[in-house]
């Protein structure tokens, strides 16, 4: 059991941050890695990225958006409550090195995944430009944290309520047109964002890494639920990823596989809402 020590509602109460006790994972977790958790005895196993670890306090930060029953249930938990199982750290850590100029692009809750990675690139000596985007101002998360983790932060909103009016890719294109010293782009967000971002960066010939979030079950390489096609080959996101060369990923397949259980997920959510009333 993992006790919740802090809870923070973010982004119009659709995104939530929990600080939970997980001393072993906190000691081992590295940027880019994730955990799998099961809220309670009847829960499903869902992968979530660690937005931060504190080895000395023995805690990890989880940031999640309410998208279905499991995350809705998680949001009802309060300080002092516990999460039944947390397994991690899983996946390969981000390969961080000093390359020069790196652009970190985060969209929606992908910013939570992006934050520790951005911090790590800055700490490794890179000049880090960060771009964060959301649909609207109230959905933007971790703005201050991302500002601290980068040298230059740009903000976009789809509706123009804050920062640049438009998509993260608009700002990215602008930067890529201006400077030719960008060595690496890391893009994490909804699949359509990553798909279009990669299509664009391919034109510029800049290496782009993405972090994928397919459905997982055991997340130790045993079941293959998370298989993704990268460069024409089937890879298991849980052990081979979660980060891959963004120019090689079959995003259309990924979207279809993420939607495999939409009907069941809706039924589960409806049932949860009905019983919560």
């Amino acid at each position, binding site marked *: 059991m993992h006790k919740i020590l802090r809870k923070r509602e973010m982004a119009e109460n659709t995104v939530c941050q929990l600080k939970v006790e997980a001393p072993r994972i906190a000691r081992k977790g590295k940027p880019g890695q994730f955990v799998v958790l*099961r809220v309670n005895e009847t829960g499903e196993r869902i992968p979530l990225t660690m937005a931060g670890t504190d080895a000395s306090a023995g805690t990890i930060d989880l940031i999640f958006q309410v998208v279905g029953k499991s995350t809705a249930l998680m949001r009802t938990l309060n300080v002092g409550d516990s999460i039944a199982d*947390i397994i991690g750290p899983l996946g390969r850590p981000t390969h961080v090195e000093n390359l020069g100029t790196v652009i970190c692009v985060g969209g929606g809750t992908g910013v939570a995944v992006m934050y520790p990675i951005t911090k790590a690139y800055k700490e490794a000596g890179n000049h880090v430009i960060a771009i964060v985007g959301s649909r609207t101002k109230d959905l933007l998360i971790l703005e201050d944290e991302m500002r601290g983790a980068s040298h230059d932060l740009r903000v976009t909103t789809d509706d123009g309520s804050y920062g640049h009016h438009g998509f993260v890719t608009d700002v990215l294109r602008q930067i890529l047109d201006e400077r030719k010293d960008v060595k690496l782009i890391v893009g994490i967000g909804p699949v359509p964002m990553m798909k279009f971002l990669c299509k664009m960066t391919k034109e510029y010939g800049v290496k782009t890494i993405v972090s994928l979030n397919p459905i997982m079950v055991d997340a130790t390489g*045993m079941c293959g639920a998370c298989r993704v096609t990268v460069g024409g080959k089937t890879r298991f996101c849980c052990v081979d990823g979660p980060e891959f060369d963004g120019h090689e990923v079959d995003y259309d397949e990924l979207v*279809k596989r993420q939607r495999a*259980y939409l009907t069941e997920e809706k039924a*589960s959510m409806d049932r949860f809402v009905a019983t919560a009333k």
Partner: protein
Amino acid sequence: MAEKEKKEKPKVPRQKMPEQEPKVRAKNFNEVPFGYTPELAQLEASRCLQCKKPKCIEGCPVEIDIPAFVKLILDGDFIGAARKLKERNSLPAVCGRVCPQEDQCEKVCIVGKKDQPVAVGRLERFAADWERAKGEVFVPEKAPSTGKKVAVAGSGPAGLTLAGDLILKGHEVTIFEALHKPGGVLIYGIPEFRLPKEIVQAEVNYLERLGVKVECNCVIGRIETVDELLQEYDAVFLGLGAGLPQFMNIPGENLCGLYSANEYLTRSNLMKAYLFPQYDTPIARGKNVAVFGAGNVAMDSARTALRLGADTVRIIYRRSRDEMPARIEEVHHAEEEGVQFYLLTAPTRFFGNDNGWVTGMECLRMELGEPDESGRRRPVPIKGSEFQLDCDMAVVAIGAGANPLLPTTTPGLELNKRGYIVADLETGKTSKPGVWAGGDIVTGSATVILAMGAGRKAGNSIQEYLMSK
């Protein structure tokens, strides 16, 4: 060598276990056989000749004193029979259900020469169930503490056996399990209708009562490496299981509704998706299901699909009936329940709809050619024999490979070219000092009892090592 004693042919026929009707059981997840009653068990036990040189003990990978426990059943001392079993086998309720007795103890039974062999597996199951139901589970005395510590990675049959053996020798034993429930393949792989999870839980509880510590949610190789474990423990045993699903590498295999057997069974067994929405994990409930492969895992998948509401379930296998690796009993159960067999057939590609769901496949007919390296006749495609089959769900159950997660994070651990850990088959010793391995991660996919045998041998070798240190 050969048993020369003249024995009379037993008059009592081999006793059947009462079981659920096929039509009824194909719609529920309850265990198929009900088990022997005491009367049936004693009747079956009376068939044993109590041979002076029993072949059955040699046929058992963990050398259970079979005539002795059968005699105790005959005498009505069912608890005594269970204790006799536990002298050699820490998981009798499991083995009584899932061991391939027909290839082991029962294969060499003298009664079986002229009649059907004594039903050793059914008797083993009876005694173990009796003890558990009576709540009189015997906890043997442990040797005084040695102060030595042993870490076990994996809580499947190999790890549980080794832990049970070494805890009795006075060592401190901790099992690390990657999933949230202990039992390994007994929990995630074998369905409830073949091995009720309550039984696995009871066997793990028994080990915990002996003092074995079980830590779930610990993926060795990530949370702790083997080298880190070696700093804290005197010996490490790797009983990881095979744990890497194999696919056929044909077009369309990543369509939705197309599962590895590992995923399909893990969803149903470990995550209890068959109880969705009481349990949150979803599972596809296909109406027209194809299962590829013909081993026990394929049978388990096919029978699970029936129970989840399929109208048609087809086992599609590229060789013929004679080469099917599943136990005869499992094939028989599947057929009784209505599973169809498409033999000498192999898929070549899958078709899907706009949502990315599988809708069917193209298959080829095969014929058997010359024997291959496995000694079985190689399936050869018949030219121009392509045909199409519809399906709305499919399970690939063609075997497992070696999961690379731990081996690749453990320097100094020798692997073979297929990625399995190289270990001495008699001692379980690996190339890395202080590290033993056994079960499927050494041999490739095999049986529960062989993994238990490997756990026992490695346990003996660790015992020797710890006491000479």
